[in-house]
């Protein structure tokens, strides 16, 4: 299991940041991704693998009207 924004999510071998975003429906572009506190830049989303037990933060910076 991993946690995404402190909520438990199932994990599988080969899960990367981009596929996690796709599966969770996180389409909003203006986000900050951190894995175990470490910032992951947008260019690395497809390449960066997520390990079992990782703590993933996907902060949406959406301003609201």
């Amino acid at each position: 299991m991993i946690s995404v924004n402190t909520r438990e999510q199932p994990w599988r071998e080969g899960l990367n940041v981009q596929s996690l975003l796709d599966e969770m429906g996180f389409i909003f572009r203006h986000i900050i991704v951190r894995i175990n506190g470490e910032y992951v830049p947008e260019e690395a989303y497809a390449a960066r693998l997520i390990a079992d037990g990782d703590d993933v933060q996907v902060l949406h910076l959406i301003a609201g009207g």
Partner: protein
Amino acid sequence: MGKILKQIRYTPAKIERGYSNKSLYINVGDLRIEEKEVTDFMKEKFVGGKGFDLWYLWNAVTPETRWDSPENEIVMSVGPLGGITQYSGAGKTLVCAISPLTGIPIDSNAGGYFGPLLKFAGWDALELQGKAEKDLIIFIDGNEGLISIEEGEEYPEDSHLLAEELTTRFAGSEEDKVHVSVVSSGSAAKHVLMGMLNFSFYDPRRKTVRFKQAARGGLGTIMRDKRIKALVVKFKGIKPNLNNPADIATLNRIGVKYHKEMHDLDEKQNGMRKIGTANTILVMNKYDLLPTRNFQTGGDPDAVKVSPEVFITQYLTQGLHDGCWYGCTMSCAKAADHFKLLTGPYAGQCVTVDGPEYECVAGLGSNLGIFDPQAILEQNFYCDTYGIDLISYATTVAFIMECYQRGQISQEDMGGLDLCFGNAAASLELLHQMSRGEGFGPLAGLGIRRLKKEFVERFGADPRLLEDIGMENKGLEYSEYLHKESLAQQGGFALTNKGPQHDEAWLIFMDMVNNQIPTFEDKAYALFYYPMFRTWFGLCGLCKLPWNDIVPADNYKTETPAKVPEHVQNYVDIFGAVTGKIIDKDELIRQSERVYNFQRVFNLRMGSGLRKHDKAPYRSLGPVTAEEYLSRQERYDKQLRELQGLDPEAMSLDEKIAATRAWREKQFELLTDAVYKRRGWTHNGVPKPEHLKEIGMDLPMLLEVVEKHL
């Protein structure tokens, strides 16, 4: 030109460190025109803008004052940072009055040129009191030093005609038009309680008058009740040092830094320069947060028909500056030019539509089940020119449509209008009826609070259902965000001063998606910090959007990216650069707290301001109907299991709905407890005297009110 009823000359005060130090009082009943001093006390406790407005309003009214009492005032002020040109979003005027919808003060902000021009004409604030017998036009010429009140019967009522005519009349030439700004309402404002104010500015590229609005609360209704047809200000000579700032170098440096940020990053971030606030429509839809059919669900597959792309490619002129005051490079006031109207008195004409903002697409679109961009823009146009608050209109019509859907009212009750979800033609016809004061228009124009009562008494509607689905709090309609699953935003709407407008707090993503405020204390802190921070803009003349609708490239590295710390520091620095008063981030919040608590006590004084007035309709907190529960069944069943230890398999649908409701209502009470505590208020929502003392607002006038409720 109408007969001149009064005219006086004055010497326009010079602005010092953002203040002219004078305010203007006009009584449209006896035509008194007076100048008042802006005191150090006012600047210390109230800063400007909304603070000044509320101070003058308190002194003008009594606890018995109604919205249509002659002593009710419309007060306008831009604040010390208003009118600077270097930093984006420095043209926001705050307008306050006792609201027709709520009976308590409304504070509403409008972009555009009026407030800055008023200040440069020599006036930090303007009070309008009294009532005239016939329509008046008030004109202030800040170069000539002239104030003139004349008869205005002959002018049209609808803003797109009225403001164009007055701009042309008071401008000496085409080049002079940018120096004129008109405040006006529209033909509907005398028939509805949700009338709004348009603030015009002249667009020299489009060669047309454009509008921003002080929309919420019914200010246009009051202005027309006072028989003020329009307020016109003229000032020529805008320069970057007109506020006589203490430190123009800092102002310039920070302004350029921010402009560069807009240039480099806007396209990658929110695309404000292309589409404006409607950039979030598809995102909200995807995240199940787009209010649909009276806040029943969070989206619709048809939302793609009203996506930002559709408006950008088919309607909105691209590539032209669209700021609503000089110097705003966020430039988000988009417009659809050469838009052909299909209905109403102006059918066949091509006009410029100011919009659509997010609220317009969500309100006049998905919340009414309408997914036709043309119909959305046409409703937008008519709300604007008729002087109707688009948000109150949309949320009220959404309520009416659901009442009709559920058989609570009939087509006959609506005078033959088939106001079902998705019927844009019926909505447009209702707008025209509001303008003419005919048919269902005036009844619908009462707003949800009064409509609930009317529907029950006149048409035998179910009072309990209407209480649940009528999205109003304190008498003001909710703005257009589906927040059923966000306890923080439920508080963000209901635990407000004026009513459920999101300018105080917008916490939906932080709460639901980012899960950054999981505990009551986290939420309570957010419902302390964000309303205080966000309402500070209204003291100074600033627009909130440049704060977080773009963020610096390294914002992600900061500890609290949601606060956008570099931008907060920008504001701290430019406040000092203009006023010479050096503050820090804590004092910024403190300045806001003073005015916020003043407003809360003002509410108390007017018979509101207590815990029972901060209640939310159940549609705001959770699923009212079976369909709503079933539309999110997995989520709700899971919550029954995980949060309440119940077994949804063993429960009927009605039992599950009831159990969810009991839980949610309890959660809201617990949140309210935590928020009041954090704000320094009693369990009943009354600011404690010791808290007022701590923030420097232990004024005898406030303590006197508060003591009665302890």
